[in-house]
């Protein structure tokens, strides 16, 4: 097992000991990233509960843009398989979805199921374009553009300009799909896009499909829901899980100097934020390198070094991925479990020093 403390290679026991002492003395620790398999995410919430940490994910900007909208207006969603099989009109919202793997599948195949089976698939674009047949640059911004499309779909705006044409094509579709990236569109935009899908669904079928998502955020959302009853950004400082997307935003907490220790969980590789270097940190990462944090412990990558349940983008579900190249690297869940054991016996939480 590869492990480093302050840049120097060491063994597992020493690294776990160093990580435990870093977390034990922290007033407000944060467990961030959470890019890992379900077992490790569970272990992370368990550890957070024991040490009063708060939790944040690697892709929370996009996750909360979606959850915020979902909590208010609900969502009409499809899956990648349904979109590829049924959609005869696809509206690509913004630039990010053009980079998504699903786009090639949508371009390469015609709809094969349902009422649109066998017909051509039309690709429309708003905001940015690569190969769409109809494209609207939308200089006023994506959020505003989605609002304009919705006003057309409602019949409150009319005309045969570009947004009018796009709205007409969506209204005439058998199965429309609105492809978007939540982080790019933002909460207000996502809510407006859901409104557009709902307007169109009055007369035909139209669904939204979010692409991307950073890390394993889509696995964290259901796991945090079944463990805490809340969305991912929860804190356990007062022993019960409190959900507060603003207070437990890890980047904000670091910028405001509220955090004194961070545990970064990146068993599924994900880019590390630059604020990580500004606080004492422990990193459990698959791509272990000495400089990643103050204490670095290399863990197995689920689906490669060991089996694990991960978000399956293609099937839009949590599925088990067997180890493709088994190794003796420990799983992130087992390291988190060892940390928890060490911290529970080591007695945390005290009022020994003046609190203020």
């Amino acid at each position, binding site marked *: 097992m590869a492990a480093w403390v302050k840049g120097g290679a060491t063994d597992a026991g020493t690294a776990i000991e160093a990580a435990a002492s870093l977390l034990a003395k922290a*007033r*407000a620790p944060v467990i961030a990233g959470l890019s890992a398999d379900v077992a490790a995410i569970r272990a992370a919430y368990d550890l957070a509960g024991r*040490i*009063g940490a708060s939790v944040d994910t690697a892709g929370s900007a996009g996750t*909360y843009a979606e*959850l*915020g909208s979902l*909590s*208010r207006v609900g969502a009409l969603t499809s899956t990648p398989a349904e979109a590829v099989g049924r959609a005869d009109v696809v509206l690509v919202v913004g630039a990010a979805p053009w980079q998504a793997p699903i786009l090639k599948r949508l371009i390469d195949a015609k709809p094969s199921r349902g009422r649109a089976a066998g017909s051509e698939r039309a690709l429309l674009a708003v905001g940015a374009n690569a190969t769409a047949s109809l494209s609207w640059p939308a200089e*006023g911004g994506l*959020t*505003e553009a989605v*609002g*304009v499309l*919705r*006003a057309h779909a*409602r019949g*409150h*705006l009319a005309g045969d300009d570009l947004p009018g044409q796009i709205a007409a094509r969506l209204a005439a579709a058998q199965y429309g799909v609105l492809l978007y990236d939540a982080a790019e569109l933002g909460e*207000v935009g996502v*809510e*407006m896009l859901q*409104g557009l899908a709902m307007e169109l669904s009055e007369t035909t079928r139209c669904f939204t499909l979010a692409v991307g998502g950073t890390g394993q955020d889509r696995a964290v959302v259901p796991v945090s829901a079944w463990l805490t009853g809340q*969305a991912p950004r929860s*804190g356990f*400082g*007062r*022993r019960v899980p409190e*959900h*507060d*997307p*603003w*207070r437990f935003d890890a980047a904000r907490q670091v910028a*405001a100097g*509220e955090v004194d220790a961070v545990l970064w969980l990146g068993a599924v590789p994900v880019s590390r934020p630059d604020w990580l270097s500004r606080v004492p940190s422990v990193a459990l990462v698959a791509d272990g390198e000495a400089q990643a944090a103050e204490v670095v412990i290399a863990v197995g990558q689920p689906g490669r070094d060991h089996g694990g349940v991960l978000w399956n983008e293609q099937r839009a579900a949590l599925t088990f991925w067997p180890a493709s190249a088994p190794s003796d690297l420990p799983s992130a869940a087992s390291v988190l479990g060892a940390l928890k054991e060490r911290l529970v016996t080591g007695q*945390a*939480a*005290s*009022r020994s020093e*003046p*609190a*203020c």
Partner: protein
Amino acid sequence: MSTLTLRAAPPERLDLLNINPLALSRLSQGEAERLEIGTTRTGVRLGDCFAVALDRSDTLTIEGGHERLDRVGASLSEGTIRVAGDVGQRLGAGMAGGSLIVAGNAGPYAATGATGGTITVEGDAGDHAGGAVYAAKAGLDGATLIIRGAAGAHLGDRMRRGTIVAGRAGAFAGSRMIAGTLAALAVGDHPGFGMRRGTLLVGTHGRMSPTFVETGTHDLVFLRLLATALRSLSAEHADLLGKPLRRYSGDLATIAKGEIWVAA
């Protein structure tokens, strides 16, 4: 007048939900000092951070503010709280009555879900002032929010009732508004984005979304009533109504029963 004096900058965010004149009036000095206000496992208590002086009156003064003081005056139902400095998020959240005055700046989500009373911020307010928190049905819900300085983005997001008066406001002022009245001397881009009903009164504005349609200049009795109502809160805002006003109707993406009045 009871007084809490902050001794030093708080080492963590503090939650002052349970600190109000009514609650303190029933407690002894010792009991008040033992009230839990911490948000981490260290269990910070009121006496750890504040010097407490109680006189059982209905007025509480917090001397020395800090942006880490969350939920000051939250759920306040009667009495007055004055803060001599800054406060953190959710100032007066869910407040039902009474008066809350902050001499400094407020963090985000000031007056969220407040159903009654008056909240005054002499300095600036953060994003989502009078706006809804995550998963809440509505932002400001009947209270009066006065921001003398600048407000951040999403001022009055999803507000449902009540009045907001702000100096300047950022982008998306009055976004997704359900109902209510929002007056600002200047707002940023996309005022009223996604609003259903409600009234915005603005001096100047940034980019107006094409989903708002200009419906001309009107001289309505309602505007004079509004001017009278606003004059008690801010003469400057009431004066906006003395000028010829252009009316925009929207947001056409929704039921479009909202309106934005722009002082020319």
